[in-house]
């Protein structure tokens, strides 16, 4: 185990990250099993019941959304919210994707574009920079640390107005670049990759790769990248959520509905539905909302193993 006694962290060490553990020796998996053993004998029904209440709170709105996505506009207004009425789920889905010249489909594709380029790029940049900070000594490193950590405290929305003015002078507003460029920077991702790289990539491996004559970038791709896997998945997932769910930035940057992401589009439909005389498409707002959240929930469920180990390994050190 690499002993990390930096600052205030007394007993805090990286947990058992899925893959790096193998390299450090066989102890962590064994520990993980032994960890809960002393408690196993007494499970508490009361505690489980209390937690069930919490789960109901967490899942009830999602259940409400799923149930009401099966109702027609008429059914919505004439039925109990937590039970089914006329089953129109499939017509709702097809209406959502075709309404107003299939604008929702366009929004979905826009969102995918912003996520792939924005969140993908942000993860790449954060990984490179986090690794660079963790594994190299260079002049100005302390300044980089201070500036990035300081910037995290600056409210994102405080940057929005000046960023908008700058981008509008550069002619970037109302184009995908206005969404993609700011999404490329994730200080939290940098921080996570930094702490993760510190522990996941042993210095000796880097040394021996260098001795063998591999260049730094070759070393990075061949030796370090595979070890950084869980950390990268974690940062990618959090960046995807941030970009997929982004609302404020598109709200100020985009006027043209053709470039809207899903979030902005749904808000538009809701505004239209609330306006007197507007086409009340509540069923489409609800079905569209469901379609918007399903991919992310699926990603979190499927990738659980990776991001949970990545998160504990990059866990806060004091």
């Amino acid at each position, binding site marked *: 185990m690499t002993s990390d006694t930096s600052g205030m962290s007394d007993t805090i060490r990286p947990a058992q990250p899925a893959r790096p553990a193998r390299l450090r020796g066989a102890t962590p998996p064994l520990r993980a099993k032994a960890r809960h053993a002393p408690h196993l004998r007494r499970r508490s029904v009361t505690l489980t019941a209390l937690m069930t209440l919490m789960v109901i709170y967490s*899942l009830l709105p999602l259940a409400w959304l799923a149930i009401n996505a099966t109702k027609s506009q008429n059914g919505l207004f004439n039925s109990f919210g937590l039970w089914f009425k006329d089953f129109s789920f499939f017509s709702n889905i097809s209406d959502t994707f075709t309404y107003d010249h299939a604008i929702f489909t366009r929004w979905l594709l826009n969102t995918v574009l912003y996520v792939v380029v924005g969140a993908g790029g942000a993860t790449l940049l954060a990984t490179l920079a986090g690794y660079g900070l963790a594994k190299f000594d260079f002049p100005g490193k302390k300044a980089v640390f201070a500036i990035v950590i300081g910037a995290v405290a600056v409210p994102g929305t*405080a940057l929005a107005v*000046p960023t908008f003015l700058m981008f509008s002078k550069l002619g970037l507003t109302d184009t995908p670049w206005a969404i993609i460029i700011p999404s490329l920077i994730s200080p939290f991702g940098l921080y996570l990759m930094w702490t993760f790289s510190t522990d996941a990539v042993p210095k000796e491996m880097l040394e021996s790769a260098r*001795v063998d004559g591999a260049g*730094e970038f070759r070393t990075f791709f061949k030796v370090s990248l595979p070890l950084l896997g869980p950390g990268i998945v974690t940062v990618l997932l959090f960046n995807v959520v941030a970009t997929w769910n982004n609302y404020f930035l598109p709200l100020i940057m985009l006027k043209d509905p053709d470039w809207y992401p899903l979030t902005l589009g*749904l808000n538009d439909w809701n505004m239209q539905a609330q306006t007197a005389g507007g086409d009340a498409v509540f069923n489409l707002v609800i079905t569209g909302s469901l379609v918007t959240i399903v991919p992310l929930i699926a990603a979190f469920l499927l990738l659980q193993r990776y991001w949970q180990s990545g998160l504990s390994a990059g866990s806060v050190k004091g």
Partner: protein
Amino acid sequence: MASLSADHARPGPPAARARRKTRRSLVGWKFVSPFMALFALVFLAPIGYSIYLSLYKTRLIGGTQFVGAQNYTEAFQDSQFWSGFGRVALFLMVQVPIMLGLALLLALAIDSGRLYGAAFFRISVFLPYAVPAVVATLMWGFMYGTRFGLIGNLDKAFGVTLPDPLSPDLILASIGNIVTWQWVGYNMLILYSALRVVNPSLYEAAAIEGAGQFRIIWAIKLPALRGALMIATIFSVIGSFQLFNEPSILKHLAPNAITTYFTPNYYAYSLSFDGQQFNYSATVAIVMGVATMIVAYAVQLRGMRKAG
């Protein structure tokens, strides 16, 4: 392994070694510079531009003029700004402790090993984090509503009139509920991750010495959580001071309950995009940014003093 073949790789003369060292230094920059270049464009430049904007004023007659601190003195006397500020401060003092307290209880419960199906609980409570603020707000907003929401259903079913969550008196609490719903699982996960890295032999030692669950929580778990709690608190402070999405979306469902200066951020947004008062808007944003940093810093200091 490294020492065996080190000879031919490490050049002898000190000058060459020094040169090699500087070269390696710059290699670090190769990894960091793409991030830093964009960071300068989307973080540092806007901050600088904001400060610049806040020192000027555009008038109908006379155009844009340097006015020094005048925008700031105006902001400090602006009752609309202060009403928004008071609202987010109240939100911070009520919602954040409730949310973090719940997150702490959840993390301790899941970590205790005394739950049936702990993994299921962990992922279920976390899921709302994946829901966009827009969808979360629309969903809760509809459920709060009387037209086809749950409140309306209950009113009809029992022939009562429940308090309207979208009324001016309750709207802040209703927003607090949406924010708590979204973020409690995320905070639970931060705390839970910190608990996972506690050395398990500490628990064993404590158990051998006869310490009960609560004693273990008090003496081992809570101290281990200090750092994670501090980070979670700082994130929550930032989040509260930035409050914008939920009120701006709820405004369409509850136009009378939410003003254009409901939160300082909403105020800055309205000033810019409805009023074209970019200079004053930048000032409001800076004041809020500084306030956020002061509070975040105070939280950090408090956390450190307890640690020391």
